[in-house]
């Protein structure tokens, strides 16, 4: 018994289905004699076999074009595999196209009703759950307004409000949660966790490895249509990250002279250099000087595309302790749901940390900019930016939190019986 099973599934889109068909196209493309060429099939998925048990959670990772969308469609029971066999639980819901069916002229309430019916509810069921959907979406009086007056965030909230009212046995999600404000994202994640605890199986495709790690037990890694790895989340994500490091190293041009900040390619600077990180500065008490335990810290940098603008790059900043290399923090724009833009040519970035309770010592900061699917780094400055912290020595701990000691008066010297 399983909720989703792929048995040796291959999927190719026929050559002639790439553009809208017309009579002329049919004759030239469908009849190979006329077009004079018979191109081999391009497989979007190759020989995928997997099985998801009820209550299981499967993350799907892979670069753009790895076949994730094709996989999700088949997993939703949409379309036919070219070879092999797909079995999907009949009670499956997707959010592959969240909100795309909204009618802009109609009100939020009317659209929610449509979405609920389209997702499989009868009118009676939909009307019963309508208040909870609208409540979840937090639209207040806007439910009576036409959707064309909504912001993107409001549309998303309305769409997810409908999904939240469903209780499918299998829920298929395609990184919809990457958008929206943080508080609402949290609410959606809570609802997904609730569904999962209630026995709903989950298939989640995402570029955000953090999201996969917190939500999924199993991970499938698709690479150019192949199932490169499947297994428990820790091992597959680690394998994926290692591959990213390798890909980064392979793409790093052979180094030349030492540049700004003592950076040298293949030594402490890695990445394809299609986009670079420039003018990195740490702002403490004084520029470049030491900070004290509990001080705020700001880090600024400029990212700059070499030629073409880059799609949705991810900026990462991490800090390690000198010596044992213990990781103090490892922050990324992706994990925080912060988007630099769909296409970025250049941007000045500032990371502000309100207080940093580090023990005295020496630290070094890494900064990097990554491809949208973590495929490889564009530019990564490794252990390049030193940071000295002055203040109390923290023992062997990583933190010196703001603290005080005291003795509680009552109950301490009660005599023993």
């Amino acid at each position, binding site marked *: 018994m399983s909720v989703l099973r792929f048995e040796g599934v291959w999927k190719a*889109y026929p050559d002639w289905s790439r553009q809208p068909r*017309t009579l002329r196209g*049919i004759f030239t493309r469908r009849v190979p004699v006329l077009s004079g060429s018979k191109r081999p099939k391009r497989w979007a998925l190759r020989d995928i076999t997997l099985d998801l048990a009820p209550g299981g959670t499967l993350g799907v990772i892979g670069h753009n074009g790895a076949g994730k969308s094709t996989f999700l469609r088949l997993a939703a*029971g949409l379309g*036919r595999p070219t070879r092999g066999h797909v079995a999907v*639980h*009949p009670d499956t819901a997707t959010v592959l196209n969240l909100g795309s069916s909204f009618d802009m*002229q109609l009100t939020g309430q009317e659209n929610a009703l449509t979405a609920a019916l389209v997702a*499989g509810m009868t009118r009676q069921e939909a009307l019963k759950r309508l208040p909870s959907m609208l409540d979840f979406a937090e639209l207040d009086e806007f439910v009576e307004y036409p959707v064309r007056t909504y912001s993107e965030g409001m549309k998303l909230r309305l769409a997810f409000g409908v999904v939240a009212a469903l209780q499918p046995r299998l829920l298929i999600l395609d990184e919809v949660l990457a958008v929206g404000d943080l508080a609402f994202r949290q609410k959606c994640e809570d609802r997904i966790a609730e569904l999962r605890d209630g026995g709903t199986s989950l298939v989640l495709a995402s570029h955000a490895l953090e999201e996969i790690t917190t939500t999924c037990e199993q991970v499938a890694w698709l690479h150019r249509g192949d199932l490169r790895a499947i297994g428990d989340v820790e091992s597959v994500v680690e394998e994926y990250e290692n591959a990213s490091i390798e890909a980064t190293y392979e793409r790093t041009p052979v180094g030349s002279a030492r540049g700004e900040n003592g950076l040298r390619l293949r030594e402490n600077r890695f990445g394809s250099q299609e986009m670079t990180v420039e003018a990195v500065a740490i702002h403490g008490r004084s520029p470049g000087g030491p900070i004290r335990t509990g001080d705020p810290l700001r880090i600024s940098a400029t990212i700059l595309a070499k030629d073409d603008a880059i799609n949705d790059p991810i900026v990462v900043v991490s800090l390690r302790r000198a010596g044992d290399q213990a990781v103090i923090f490892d922050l990324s724009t992706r994990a925080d749901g912060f988007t630099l833009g769909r296409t970025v040519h250049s941007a000045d970035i500032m990371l502000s940390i309100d207080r940093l309770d580090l023990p005295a010592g020496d630290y070094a900061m890494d900064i990097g900019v990554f491809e949208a699917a973590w495929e490889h780094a564009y530019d990564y400055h490794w252990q390049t930016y030193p940071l000295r912290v002055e203040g109390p020595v923290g023992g062997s701990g990583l933190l010196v939190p703001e603290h005080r000691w005291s003795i509680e008066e009552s109950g301490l010297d009660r005599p023993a019986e």
Partner: protein
Amino acid sequence: MTVSSSMDIAKGPAALTPVPRRSRRHLADLVLHLVRRELASAHRNTLLGWAWPLTRQLAQLAVLVFLFSHVLRLHIQDYPVFVFAGLIVFTWFQAALIASAYSVVSNAHFVTNPKFPTIALPLVAVAVPFFDVLMALPVLLVLLAVAGRLGDTALLLPPLIAVQFAFTAGVALLTSAANVYLRDVQNVVVVLLLLLFYMTPIFYGLKNVPPQFHWVLRANPLTAFVNADRAVLFEGHLPAAVDLAILTGSTIVALAIGLAVFRRLQPGFVDEL
């Protein structure tokens, strides 16, 4: 109606398959809702709202009446009512077929939903212009009454309309599915409808046509529908047996072919959209 053909219920967890009665309920709810939604969306923010479809038909009626009772005289009694009865039949069919051709391709966001019964889309395409019929019927009935032609046989109109609904749905299933694979279908439909308008006795009667050309009109099943509607409304007698035979026969054929083609092509829709 299977929601997804790639789903193998025999091998999958069959026990939790939704019961068919619930699916039918859902399909009916969905069609009604989408029709309501489309009508609401079409008429929102317009001053005349619901009156627009009727206005369109009356304008066309006015042109035809002026042309054929003042310019080219056809000598048919109560000509406006005569034309209107035929026009309603044809306009419905025309609007339904054009909408059906686009119904699946322009609603990809619905089709890519695992629980959405795609068959709802061509049905909606037929049902939405049916609303125009419902708006025009009272006007037609008043005109008939004024002309003193409204009789008992008008009670046969609802079943005739039901049969036309089924016939149109059958053709709509075919065009909606075919257009997914071959986008020329939407253009072919428009051209064929243009020819069909003149091949249907709307602004003239079968009697006005020389007998050697009757087969041309008979090749068009809509002729039987127009004749039957006129018989019960305008002429006050039962429809001719030949018309009844043609309209039932073509409805059965259209539904059988439409359903078979739609079921056959439907699993591939998502890959084409």
